[in-house]
């Protein structure tokens, strides 16, 4: 690899970085947009809810004003001559009237008049409103009771249709002992008369104005000025200290009262959350798709380039491999053909060389053919029972001369028994040949080659060990890759196509065996192939 032309890494890395960067930017921008959209959605949900709550508050206020208007109308229709009696009658029969009064000025009450004995209720009434009746508080001013300021003391009724209340009239919200009360009054002929509203009855009527269509997990509370629960609509399991999600004031008719919305999780609506989750997921998926597609593209590109380069090397290697024996064959054939070699011994040697070189050629061609078959998944195995000892001896015998010529001392160890296996005989032989070939090619300098057949678990193993330089650790995993050669240059000291080990490994794994690299005792390479036995197939 180090000898080959370097892959131009910089543009690839640039593209990768660009892709990553743009993916990150897209994700970032999308997240930002999403969060903004989420915020917008949240605020719109909030607004809608607030509007709805406001609407409900208005309904409550409307209910209050309807009650107030009704009472004001009956006050207006009282004839001046029967003021006292009619007021008394109102108090007795109208459930919305708690007390009645006629007031002429500071400390001048005509009704109820404390010069005559009063009912307990009337006594309480006079105590509650003493500062109003003794003139301490102006009727048109802001009326206060402790810190609870009533913002509106007098209201003119412009909302009612077709009925205009007299100018000198109004409603006074009045806080006494943290409880809201209300006085409706009207002025006629210098007399102010009116009623105290029965708050219990008002609340009873407001109950009907409280919303009933409450979804699960929500609760609407009507709270008075001191935070007391007056009404509740809907119900949630409460933990102490939960504060309202939303609250709106009910309006001037019920000063300081408010409607508060509570939810189980303290958030508004699951819809918004679901939106965030869904779009977040989408963005994430988009990011993943972009990223993995980019990564895949990058990887494929790098691989393609690598493969193209390997194929080029392969072709030149194979051509070189083919050319060498052919040259030798041609040279010897020409010498013999010219008839100039008279020495019989020499002639025999030439012919042997021609035969061995052709053998090498056909081995090479076989390998290439098998390789292409395997690549196209068209390789067919011819499975048969055979004795592995026989194959080993046969192969060794055919290669003995070559090994001897390479200056290697050969030792073969065979078991005493027959080693019957069920496999493709030719393929096994091819693998063994490849291993021997490799040893001759790369480890001839070691001067020793050991081939050992032994029984292994589930079959037999053939170890081909040499005393050569061995294979460095960093290459050990790659040697089985096709076209891979440790020295990849054309000018390498040994010839080879880079196919042998890759092919051998595939063949032997296809047949249910394995091919592994071990380090030999003296530092050389030892390839061990296992072939499953008969009973295992």
């Amino acid at each position: 690899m180090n000898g080959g032309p370097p892959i131009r890494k910089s543009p690839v890395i640039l593209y990768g970085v660009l892709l990553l960067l743009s993916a990150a930017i897209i994700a970032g921008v999308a997240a930002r947009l999403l969060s903004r959209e989420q915020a917008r959605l949240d605020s719109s949900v909030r607004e809608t809810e607030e509007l709805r709550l406001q609407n409900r508050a208005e309904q409550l206020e409307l209910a209050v004003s309807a009650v107030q208007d009704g009472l004001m109308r009956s006050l207006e229709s009282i004839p001046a001559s029967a003021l006292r009696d009619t007021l008394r009658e109102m108090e007795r029969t109208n459930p919305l009237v708690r007390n009645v009064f006629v007031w002429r000025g500071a400390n001048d009450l005509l009704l109820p008049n404390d010069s005559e004995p009063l009912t307990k209720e009337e006594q309480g009434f006079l105590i509650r409103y003493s500062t109003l009746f003794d003139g301490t508080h102006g009727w048109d001013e802001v009326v206060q009771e402790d810190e609870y300021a009533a913002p509106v003391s007098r209201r003119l009724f412009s909302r009612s249709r077709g009925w205009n209340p007299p100018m000198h009239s109004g409603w006074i919200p009045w806080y006494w002992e943290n409880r809201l009360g209300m006085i409706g009054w009207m002025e006629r002929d210098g007399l102010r008369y009116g009623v105290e509203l029965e708050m219990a009855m008002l609340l009873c009527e407001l109950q009907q104005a409280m919303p009933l269509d409450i979804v699960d997990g929500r609760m609407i509370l009507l709270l008075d000025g001191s935070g007391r629960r007056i009404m509740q609509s809907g119900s949630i399991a409460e933990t102490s200290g939960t504060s309202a999600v939303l609250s709106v004031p009910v309006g001037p008719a019920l000063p300081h009262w408010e409607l508060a919305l509570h939810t189980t999780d303290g958030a508004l609506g699951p819809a918004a959350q679901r939106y965030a989750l869904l779009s977040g997921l989408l963005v994430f998926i988009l990011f993943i798709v972009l990223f993995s597609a980019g990564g895949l593209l990058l990887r494929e590109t790098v691989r393609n380039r690598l493969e193209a380069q390997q194929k080029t090397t392969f072709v030149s290697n194979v051509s070189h491999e083919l050319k060498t024996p052919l040259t030798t064959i041609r040279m010897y054939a020409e010498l013999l053909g010219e008839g100039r070699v008279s020495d019989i011994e020499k002639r025999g040697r030439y012919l042997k060389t021609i035969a061995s070189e052709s053998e090498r050629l056909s081995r090479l061609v076989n390998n290439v053919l098998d390789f292409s078959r395997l690549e196209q998944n068209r390789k067919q195995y011819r499975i048969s029972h055979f004795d592995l000892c026989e194959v080993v001896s046969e192969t060794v015998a055919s290669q003995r001369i070559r090994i001897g010529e390479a200056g290697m001392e050969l030792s073969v160890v065979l078991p005493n028994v027959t080693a019957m296996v069920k496999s493709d005989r030719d393929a096994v032989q091819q693998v063994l040949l490849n291993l021997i070939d490799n040893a001759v090619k790369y480890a001839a300098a070691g001067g020793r080659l050991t081939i050992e057949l032994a029984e292994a678990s589930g079959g037999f193993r053939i170890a081909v060990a040499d005393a050569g330089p061995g294979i460095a650790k960093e290459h050990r995993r790659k040697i089985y890759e096709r076209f891979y050669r440790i020295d990849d240059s054309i000018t390498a000291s040994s010839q080879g196509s880079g196919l042998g080990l890759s092919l051998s490994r595939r063949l032997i794994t296809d047949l249910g065996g394995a091919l592994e690299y071990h380090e030999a005792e003296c530092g050389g390479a030892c390839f061990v192939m296992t072939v499953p036995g008969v009973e295992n197939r």
Partner: protein
Amino acid sequence: MKVLAKQFLAAAVAMAGAWSAQAESNVVCRVEMDHPVVLSGSRQTAVVKVTLDAPKAPKLNKRPPVNLTIVMDRSGSMGGQKIDKAREAAIAALLRLGPEDIFSLVTYDDQVTTVVPAQSAANTEWIEGRIRSVTAGGSTALFAGVSQGASEVRKHLDGRYVNRILLLSDGLANVGPSTPAELGRLGTALRKEGISVTTIGVGTDYNEDLMAQMAQNSDGNTYFVESSVDLPRIFASELGDVLSVVAGKVTIDVEFPEGIRPLRIIGRDGRVGNDHVEVSLNQLYGGQQKYALIEVELPIGAEGEVRQIAAARCAYQDMIANRPANSSGQAMVRYSADNEDVDRNMNVAVKKEVLLNEVAVAQEQAIDYADQQDYKAAAQTLYVNSANLALFAEQNSLPELEAQAAEMQQQAKDIENQQELNKEGRKSMRTSSFWIFNQQKSERGSSY
């Protein structure tokens, strides 16, 4: 109660100073004095008793149709046997109603559900199914429950019906307005609409002040039920009351002639003017007697002088004929210089009612003292009044009063010894004073 009514009737006939009202009116209005004969030559106070006697409800005639809402507490504490019994009781109540009647059922925990909207009670099968579907759980929105019940009743508020809410609760109101005063005001307002709330407290945890006040202000009844087993029986008897209402929107207006000044109304709230007194009662049951006791100041009179003391006018809605009606009566006194003459003519029945009401006032006061943890004062109040009662009972040989005096004495002793007024004691005292003030049929029969 019946025995008492007979006694009164007999006394009324025998009495010189009392005039019976017109015969054509259904409700009889009688005015009596505790002392028909008073001592001449000195200023003194006397008690005027205005009694309303309702006729027996006609058994065979049509009774007025009932517009009944049952407001049932279904908060968590009602779980188990209580809710079972309550359901059973509601069904028993339903079965007593006829097709003319209106029935509705509202339940509440922290919110209110109208289980059965107001409708004819003829639809028993469906309603029964709905009642059986009620289960317990949640907290107690009592105000909202009664409000919803009232709105169901209001759907048929046309004067033809006897309107009644039966409130059943075992707890304290904890959602919405929940003070006795506030629910009392609701009761008052509902009475003005002609709706009565009868409250039934189950167990020992409910707020009896709240329940009693709401019932009192709306002229309903209040019951204290320790065991939920009693519920069906109480529903039945309460419904018996409802079914026999003969007069509604009852008001008494008593006029006093020149020189006679009303001082107070004993045990009731009402309007006390310079020369007249107004008391309003909501309704009268068939055969029931209700009265108001008014303390007045008499002018100095000469020996032998006969004076008119009070003229009472009672206005009411005749629930059987469904039309407004009224009746009236008046009371006289005779001045006498003879002390014995005065004592001999004392009206024992009236005096007894006065005493009983004073006792009830004392009981209320004792509860207040006990609430302030002044147990000594509470016991003292009860001792003094039980002694008064015992003395009167002995003088006039009234054994049932003696028994009550003994019971009071025991209560006083308990409070003094235990240094507390336990829940049951407080509830039974509150309930019994309620019964005295309201002169309604007592759950405990004649013993009140």
